[in-house]
């Protein structure tokens, strides 16, 4: 393979990668997409592709590979196939207690939100944005505020939050570099850090919501559920929240702050489910 003087070597590489004679690329990439969406690869772990680590569903993998080649290597086609499948759309509440249920995709696999997604979700809920800067080289470059965290192109642009919640430094390119295991430090951060406290207490969205509700607590509760968990509260949940306002003798603002705090600390918010 030769790279001509004015040619972008990345294009040459990409063309080499997607030749039909190269089954390895399609195998790796469809398996990764599956693993991103489903929480587990057809070949598990997704980095561990070798002859004696067979896929759990060989025909599924072969089908996805064929579809990718057929769609001229358009990954969106693969996303569409998986996202529209009944397998993807299953409930996360297990229907079977058999130990292999999870590895055979018998239910949706619950897992912690990725660091970038979590911080973007908090930003969406409360309003004020995160600030990122590129520290190399000096002088520092600030990333425009409207940039979402998932769109940060450079692994060296990071924050304490992102590192704490397991965003990889992208040293190896392995999927296993991302560690989504919960840690004590993460929990402490979500429950009681200045960062999270500021996000809630300085939230212009929360302020607006309280203003619009004009003291109607039930309305506040409903809206917080919609914003944070994208669903209506159940009658039981409304009762619990109302009782909290009363028992704690809290003004409507403190009560709303605490309810928002409880909802972003719920498993329903912190986990894909």
């Amino acid at each position, binding site marked *: 393979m030769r790279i001509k003087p004015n040619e972008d070597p990345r294009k040459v590489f990409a063309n080499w990668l997607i030749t039909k004679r190269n089954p390895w690329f399609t195998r790796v990439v469809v398996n990764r997409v599956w693993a991103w969406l489903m929480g587990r690869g057809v070949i598990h772990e997704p980095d561990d592709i070798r002859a004696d680590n067979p896929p759990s569903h060989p025909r599924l993998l072969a089908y996805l590979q064929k579809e990718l080649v057929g769609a001229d290597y358009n990954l969106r086609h693969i996303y569409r196939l998986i996202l529209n499948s009944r397998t993807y759309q299953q409930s996360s509440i297990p229907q079977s207690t058999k130990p292999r249920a999870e590895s055979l995709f018998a239910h949706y696999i619950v897992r912690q939100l990725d660091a970038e997604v979590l911080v973007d979700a908090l930003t969406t809920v409360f309003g004020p944005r995160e600030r990122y800067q590129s520290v190399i080289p000096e002088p520092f470059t600030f990333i425009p505020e409207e940039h979402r965290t998932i769109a940060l192109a450079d692994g060296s642009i990071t924050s304490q939050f992102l590192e704490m919640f397991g965003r990889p430094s992208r040293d190896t390119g392995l999927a296993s570099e991302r560690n989504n295991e*919960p840690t004590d430090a993460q929990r402490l951060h979500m429950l009681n850090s200045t960062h999270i406290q500021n996000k809630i207490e300085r939230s212009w969205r929360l302020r607006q919501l309280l203003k619009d509700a004009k003291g109607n607590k039930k309305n506040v509760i409903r809206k917080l559920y919609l914003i944070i968990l994208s669903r209506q509260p159940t009658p039981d949940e409304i009762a619990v929240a109302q009782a909290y306002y009363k028992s704690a003798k809290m003004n409507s603002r403190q009560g709303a702050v605490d309810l928002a705090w409880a909802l972003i600390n719920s498993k329903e918010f912190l986990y894909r489910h």
Partner: protein
Amino acid sequence: MARSGLTRREVIKYGLIGAGTLMACDPRLLLASPKTPTFKPAQAKSVIQIWMWGGPSHLDTFDPKPQAGNDYCGPLDQALKTNVDGMQVNAALPLLAQQADKYSIIRSMTHGVNAHETASYLMQTGHMPSRIVHPSVGAVVSLFKGYKHGYNGIVPPYIVLTRPQGRFSEAGFLGQSYKPFCTSGDPNAKRFVVEGIVARGISDERQLRRRDLLHSLDSLGQAIGGNSQFTKLDQTEKAAYGLMFGEAKQLFDLGEESDEMRNRYGRNSFGQSCLMARRLVEVGVPYITINYQGWDTHKQHFPTMNRRLPQMDQGLATLLKDLTERNLLDSTIIWWGGEFGRSPKVQWNSPWNGGRSHHGRCFSVMLAGGGFQGGHVIGASDATGTGVVDRPVYPLDLIGSIYELMGIDPDGPLPNSQGLDLKLLPTGEKGVKSGGRLKEILRT
């Protein structure tokens, strides 16, 4: 070497004896299999790293050059005798001069790098940047001395007072479990608001009540019982509340110290950080970094030194004295230094108007306790402090010596879950310079 407590001849002699005894008497070291830690037992239990963020001037602290003149010294042109014969420090450090028997000075630190990022990485990992981001000394200590090795303290094993360093990933590829716990807040404030442990404006009562609220609204957790992910999250929550309401809160409460003690350390952030570090050592925390910012003095160098050196002098001297009085210095390493020194020649011209730039070719590090003998000077710089003339010490020599005292084999492997074949330090690798570990001051 007139200033040193140890002559060059002695240094060479001790160095050789050190190496000789190792080879003759400790074949375990040569035969040690990477999986069995048969390294000699630890002398030190804790490290207090005083990270001089930005790079402190060696001339204005531990390597004074009064003969070099105004071009080099500016107004800080006096050296001061210490309580050790022949050992001098800058006259700006009168209290530290009285404690010199407790610490040694390396005046020949070198790596030649003048960029903050690379130099910080090098000074805290011992490695030059490569594809893998190596963990810092603190992360390595918490790997070998942390929760998986019997550490059962009330706070995490690697604590940073108070801000994370930026410019530098402490845990490297080891990941977030080995990141330090950064306190934030100001230990000199009326209330030291420790990140995650003390919340501004939220009473304990409200904390507990909203915890109940959280639990009663845990609809998904109740719907999916027995999920292993959720069980883990519940465990971390227990630990988090343990920190918020357990002994940790008391530990960080500097109000428990007498006013007299707090005054001894100095009523400023650095002084109170030193006091906090001592409290952490007392409960067995193996690695504490005081991230002492503000030493990157390209401009306003001398006014800044006049303001900061007295605080540094008081805090550090009191720490040495206090640890000694509590019989803790023998088991606690104090490591003072930054990513590099500052240019010996003062930049009097505009726009600096009396500043010092980065200088990685030759600078100083101070070490005390935990098996490092005090009262010695290792190596020497030239007449202006620009280059090393005797016994170069490279970052891996310094870090290797600290590992040795902590009972961690510096030549051993770096265990990792990625299955990578890595060593703790690149000693002996091609193109990696080493002046040898600090046998001169290692207590045996």
